[in-house]
């Protein structure tokens, strides 16, 4: 049954992306900011439509090429939320060339649409196609500051690593096809054996690139550093979380990693990712690079939930994913606000509390939340994930997780230290922050506080959404 209606939001968004592109040709250059507004309003509109349509029964479409279950709706919401906030940030980002505003907005929407398809996909073919849609848009977005050599370098690295990992993934998919005779993701089609396991591992590694898991993380710091800040923000959140959604679909329900004895591998990668991310972040002097490594570490925490694989673990991943949107985008928004004036070196944060106490305090909130200090939302997410590890008796994983959380405080507080303990260079001058950045920060602060102090609504939402269609 061709049930294209299930993908209406995704297709509408892709259509709107085209509309933004077309509008670019019609609008005079002086009005180019309208295109950003058009873009974020489109994403917000689709988000509203999805929220309003929540609670529909889950169904499959086109020979189960895609599914629209509450799980995919959940991750579509996180993706769209991230897209809206990042497009708001780009409104106040000066380095973007005005005459390419339409292209930028459209590419953001295309990659968002790709991510939405990705979380709905229940067939490796669709997974691959949508992943390529995301990747190609992101490669261009990462290199959008054409005159900035770092942006070019980052985009190039991103592209080369991306192509490489796509190849690995395709190889994995072809093996899967060999074992199962189809690319459909369903249990019982493929005979368990070395070929299937090899296929699963290769596909996992391909996803690992997108989710920035160690040791497939080498592109992350360079791409994040070079990309325009709103794009960095987007890359650090949306593709990563959508990839986790697919990982959960494949390795959480269809091929439970415990059945295929992949748990040890996943747990090992989780520990490695956390440790590499956190301990490399110690030595960074660039705020974007620092948060890049932090986001690698965060992927490691998320992977704990997957490695545990129990319902509690999967709920933990969803919960942490949602919270992560708020706190990571918030932190990047402050970095953008500060970095636009003083550059992205950590010394730009010197004496920020004297220039703008409010901004310094909110940044502290975001960093504390990322570090998992209560009563902020990040703590509740981590509590959930560590709880799942404890429940399943995977003590060493929980211990690695908490030790890493402690270590992460050290580098997060290097920023706090500069904001509160250092003086400014010269007279403390006020900081000019664009209204849209303020808007994004306000949403993020609200998320960090609201999901931290009364986390029940979020937990209830996650529980209701944690039903996957196989």
């Amino acid at each position, binding site marked *: 049954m061709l049930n294209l209606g299930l993908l209406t939001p995704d297709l509408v968004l892709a259509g709107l992306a085209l509309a933004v592109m077309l509008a670019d040709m019609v609008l005079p250059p002086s009005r180019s900011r309208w295109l950003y507004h058009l873009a974020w309003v489109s994403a917000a509109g689709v988000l509203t439509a999805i929220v309003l349509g929540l609670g529909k029964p889950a169904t499959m479409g086109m020979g189960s090429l895609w599914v629209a279950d509450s799980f995919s709706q959940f991750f579509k919401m996180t993706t769209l939320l991230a897209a809206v906030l990042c497009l708001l940030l780009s409104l106040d980002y000066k380095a973007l060339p005005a005459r390419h505003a339409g292209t930028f907005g459209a590419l953001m929407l295309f990659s968002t649409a790709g991510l939405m398809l990705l979380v709905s996909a229940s067939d490796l073919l669709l997974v691959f196609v949508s992943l390529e849609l995301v990747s190609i848009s992101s490669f261009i977005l990462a290199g959008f500051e054409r005159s900035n050599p770092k942006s070019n370098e980052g985009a190039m690295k991103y592209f080369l690593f991306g192509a490489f990992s796509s190849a690995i993934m395709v190889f994995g998919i072809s093996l899967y096809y060999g074992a199962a005779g189809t690319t459909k993701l369903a249990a019982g089609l493929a005979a368990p054996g070395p070929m299937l396991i090899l296929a699963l591992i290769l596909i996992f590694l391909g996803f690992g690139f997108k989710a920035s898991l160690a040791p497939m993380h080498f592109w992350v710091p360079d791409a994040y550093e070079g990309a325009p800040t709103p794009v960095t923000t987007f890359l650090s959140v949306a593709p990563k979380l959508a990839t986790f959604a697919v990982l959960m679909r494949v390795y959480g329900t269809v091929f439970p990693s415990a059945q295929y004895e992949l748990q040890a591998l996943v747990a090992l990668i989780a520990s490695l990712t956390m440790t590499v991310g956190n301990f490399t972040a110690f030595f960074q002097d660039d705020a974007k690079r620092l948060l890049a490594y932090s986001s690698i570490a965060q992927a490691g925490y998320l992977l704990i939930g997957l490695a545990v694989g129990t319902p509690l673990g999967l709920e933990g991943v969803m919960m942490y994913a949602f919270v992560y949107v708020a706190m990571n985008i918030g932190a990047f928004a402050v970095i953008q606000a500060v970095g636009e004036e003083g550059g992205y070196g950590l010394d730009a944060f010197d004496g920020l*509390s004297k220039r703008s*106490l409010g901004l310094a305090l909110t940044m*502290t909130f975001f960093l*504390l939340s990322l570090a998992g*200090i*209560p*009563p902020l939302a990040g*703590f509740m997410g981590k*509590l959930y994930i*560590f*709880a799942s590890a*404890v*429940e399943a008796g995977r*003590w060493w994983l*929980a*211990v690695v997780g*908490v*030790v890493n*959380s*402690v270590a992460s*405080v*050290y580098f997060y*507080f290097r920023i706090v*230290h500069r904001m*509160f*303990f250092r003086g400014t260079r010269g007279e403390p001058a006020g900081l000019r922050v664009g209204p849209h950045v303020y808007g994004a920060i306000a949403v993020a602060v609200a998320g960090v506080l609201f999901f931290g102090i*009364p*986390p*029940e609504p979020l*937990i*209830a939402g996650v*529980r209701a959404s944690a039903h996957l269609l196989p």
Partner: protein
Amino acid sequence: MLSLIVWSPLVGALIVLMTPKEKVRAIQTVSFVAAGVALAASLTLLLNFDRGSAAMQFVERWMWIPSLNVQYLLGIDGLSYPLVLLTAFMSVIALVGSLGIKERVKEYFFWFLLLEVGMLGVFAALDLVLFYVFWELTLVPMYFLIGVWGGPKKEFAAIKFFLYTLSGSVFMLLSILALYFKSAPHTFDMLELMKPGVQSLFDPRFQILAFLGLYFGMAIKIPAFPFHTWLPLAHVEAPTPISVILAAVLLKMGVYGLLRIAYGITPLGFAWFLPALIVIAVINIVYGALCAMAQTDMKKMVAYSSVNHMGYCLLGIAGMSATGFSGAAFQMVNHGIITGALFLLVGVIYDRAHTRDVSAFGGLALKLPVYSGLMAMTCFASLGLPGLAGFISEFMCFLGAFSAWPWPTAISVVGIIATAAFFLRMMQKVFLGAFNEKWAGMEDMTARELISVMPLAVVTVWFGIAPKWPLDLMNKTIEHMLGK
């Protein structure tokens, strides 16, 4: 009522945050009102507090996170109520001491009030997650209070304090989670977890592991040897009022947690650990005193004396007798008051001389009679002179431990001698002997300093002469804890 006590400083903190930073007077007034409301409310509880009952009183119970069965559960008994009183009281005292803060006043009072919320919450919370949230809530404000307003090595001291304490508390969190999943039905409620029905689910091996996680978190806070190394640094670098809070309240969180949670919920693990605990107590007492003796910086000396005094608490606890437990609980209060006063007094002289080196002074007793008198009394109280508060509780700790652990207790007595030695030597060098003419212009204590120290001195004498009143508050609960 307990919610009022816990949250009124938060309301104050938010008002402070919204006040323009130039309005220093307004900020100070708001802080005093907020802390004053907490103190007044905790004092009014005295009227209704039933000393004859060991049950939790003034219990407030709401569901906080139903899906995980986390409750907003507050309540106090004879163990926690004196500590709530102590916290509210010492906060006001430290606020008086904070009036001397001139830099970044708004931020200071904001963090201070936030810290008070965390401290009060720790003692009032009866749900483990809530407890943990309050426990961690003290870290960030303390980091800023040390790091911005502290001494020369403040930044290092601040981050060391933060990381050290956090690394302990995350293991405590894992233990809490383990207890949750082992109990049936899953609960974070401390009182439920102490009930025999739930207790029977915890086998000894599990209890030992859970205890170790809990103990690791508490031991760093207490601080018990060998996790005490953050303390001298943090106490010395912190500004005076914050040293007061650190010594008077923050260390008590560890001992309180050990008694309430580690002993209450994992008694078998606690019993298994006892032989180690007594050794740690003895090391804390003797080693702390010897370290204090080696210091020439007065503040550092007082800081190490805290390590020594917390050793008495541990000794009393290790005795596992009603006398020992009461002694430990009473010692917590007394140490808070006495050491708080000591830090304030050291701060007084530092403000004038800008040095705390004992050998820089001499013969101050002639020049500063009031100051010298107060200092002498507080030192005597701290070294355990009969008639003052410290003696009663220390004596009870020794008495409680003696029947179970005669030899370790005997060794600990050496600690008392060392304590007496370093306090007397300090007094001799600073107050007696030839007057150092360098300090000819030094003035005696100001009204503000007197206001902050006098209440503590009065309480020290009062508890020394009439210890029955505070001990009566605790007795029933302690008997109940020991199952009598």
